[in-house]
């Protein structure tokens, strides 16, 4: 496949510019993420207070705070709205116009998400990460930072591939809000957004560690805070990489099959 870097940069720039134009929307997104994080802090503070323990499963309350602050930061940069974008453009027919550009539609989506995540929300994400390190009294070594960066990129790929597959379903289902909610709930519970996976039974952890779900939030957050072993980090990178290949394959085949029907879905 030919890489048209000039076109991609142009698309990245204009998408970024269009996103900056929605300043209120951007501010509300930041507020929404902060509120979500605040809810988790409140819930876990209540849990620790109710149990009267200083540690649960080896994690202190400040460690839990740090964990959820990292999750909040990750949410800024790996969160996706590809599914929403696809559903809307399929339903209103604008996907036809998008497909007429000399840039492949899936590439347009990826570039749009990169513009959204890594440029607009990288500053608040960075602030969250610094705050987490301060609360956990933790440092960040070079190896740890490199592993974290690799896991963030992998989380971005996996989450957006999931989003792409859900969006693709809009060709058949028209409205995928229900599916989006189900997928979000599964990711929240099993991906480490509502609790570190160490809180689950060992057998459940063993199964989950072979799935793509912990690569979305749990592994990057734990790597960042240094709460998992080096061996586990390598395993998470290996498993995540395999899942990216599998999901890419499914997405490529799915797009090839579904793009035949996509233009007529919008009229």
């Amino acid at each position, binding site marked *: 496949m030919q890489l048209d870097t000039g076109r991609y940069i142009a698309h990245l720039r*204009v998408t970024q510019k269009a996103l900056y134009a929605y300043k209120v929307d951007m501010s509300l997104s930041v507020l929404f993420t902060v509120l979500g994080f605040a809810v988790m802090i409140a819930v876990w503070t209540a849990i620790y207070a109710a149990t009267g323990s200083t540690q649960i499963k080896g994690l202190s309350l400040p460690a839990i705070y740090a964990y959820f602050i990292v999750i909040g930061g990750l949410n800024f940069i790996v969160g996706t709205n590809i599914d929403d974008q696809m559903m809307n453009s399929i339903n209103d027919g*604008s996907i036809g116009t998008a497909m*007429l550009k000399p840039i492949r539609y899936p590439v347009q989506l990826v570039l749009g998400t990169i513009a959204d995540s890594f440029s607009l929300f990288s500053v608040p994400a960075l602030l969250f990460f610094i705050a987490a390190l301060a609360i956990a009294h933790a440092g960040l070594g070079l190896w740890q930072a490199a592993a974290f960066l690799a896991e963030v990129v992998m989380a971005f790929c996996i989450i957006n591939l999931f989003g792409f597959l859900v969006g693709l379903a809009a060709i058949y289902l028209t409205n995928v809000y229900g599916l989006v909610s189900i997928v979000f709930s599964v990711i929240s519970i099993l991906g480490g957004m509502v609790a570190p996976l160490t809180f689950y039974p060992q057998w459940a952890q063993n199964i989950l560690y072979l799935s793509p779900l912990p690569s979305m939030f749990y592994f990057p957050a734990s790597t960042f805070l240094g709460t998992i072993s080096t061996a586990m980090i390598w395993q998470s990178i290996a498993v995540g990489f395999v899942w990216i290949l599998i999901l890419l394959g499914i997405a490529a085949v799915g797009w090839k099959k579904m793009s035949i029907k996509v233009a*007529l879905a919008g009229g």
Partner: protein
Amino acid sequence: MEDAIVAGNLRKRFKTHESLRGKKVFLASLRRRSFYKQALDDVSFSVPRGQIVALLGKNGSGKSTLTKIMTGILFPDSGEIRVLGLNPWKDRIRLAMEIGVVLGAHGQLFWNLPASDAFEYNRRIYEVPDSTYQKRLSYFVDRLELGDVYKRQVRQMSLGEQMKCNFVSSCLHMPKIVFLDEPTIGVDLPSKLALRETISEMQRRFGTTFILTTHIVEDIAIAERVIMLDKGKKIFDDTKENLEKLFGDKRYITLKFDGRAPSKVKMGKVLEREANVLKLEVPHRAIKSRAMMDLLDSKRVMDYSVSEVDLSHILSKLYRKLDRRDRTGGRYAT
């Protein structure tokens, strides 16, 4: 002349659904029947480079499907199509560099950004050199009387201004073929004229091929050729003049009488009668007939005018005929 588009025996059918009637609203919404709709049925044609073709037909006749197949965003079930020598869906990205498309409501502009940003974006993705881009931009701004409008946010533009900017956006890379779907919808009269003149000039100066899907009769006037679809079949493919002849080789004659107008005359059909004025539809050849000459020479006729049957009349007559055929299940052949 080399062909811009060659299509042979194109067929496309869609699976669609309709809800079945049930006693309960909830059950009715669950029950539905699937059926296939033949959107294109054995459509063949070729378009030489530099021709303006009007693609006509009632809603659901297959125009959009055909346009989507020609632009490469839809696959035909069977048949052959080459656009600029390329297979539209296999070489979609290469073809995208050579064509321009304005799809009515779905614009190329960014709602919260000035149109100039979309122009600049297209300059980059279509790899137009800056100096060429500047020349083309000033050409289109001048021809379409855009002034500084394109520097405003799209959401602050009128529909007509958006339409003109969409047209510019689609043509800045000087495509060899431009597909226009209802390009003058919502556009004021001076802008409509400017758009039509620009299309004609692009065809003359640059040899651009235009495929124009429209319901607006004045837009059809700039086309050299008309392809008409009905229920996915091509029912007419000839010059605009021949369409007029085929469906309307007639003339309107308005007669003003000295006194009360007669209720009927033998050489034509009375369309309107009002006190001393009579409007007739007569065969073209009847204008110079002896009977007509005698009538016009008679002292009873004070004044008269002759006009051609316009395209809107022809099309509405044709569409009514097609509707009647659909209701009765009969056939209509041109």
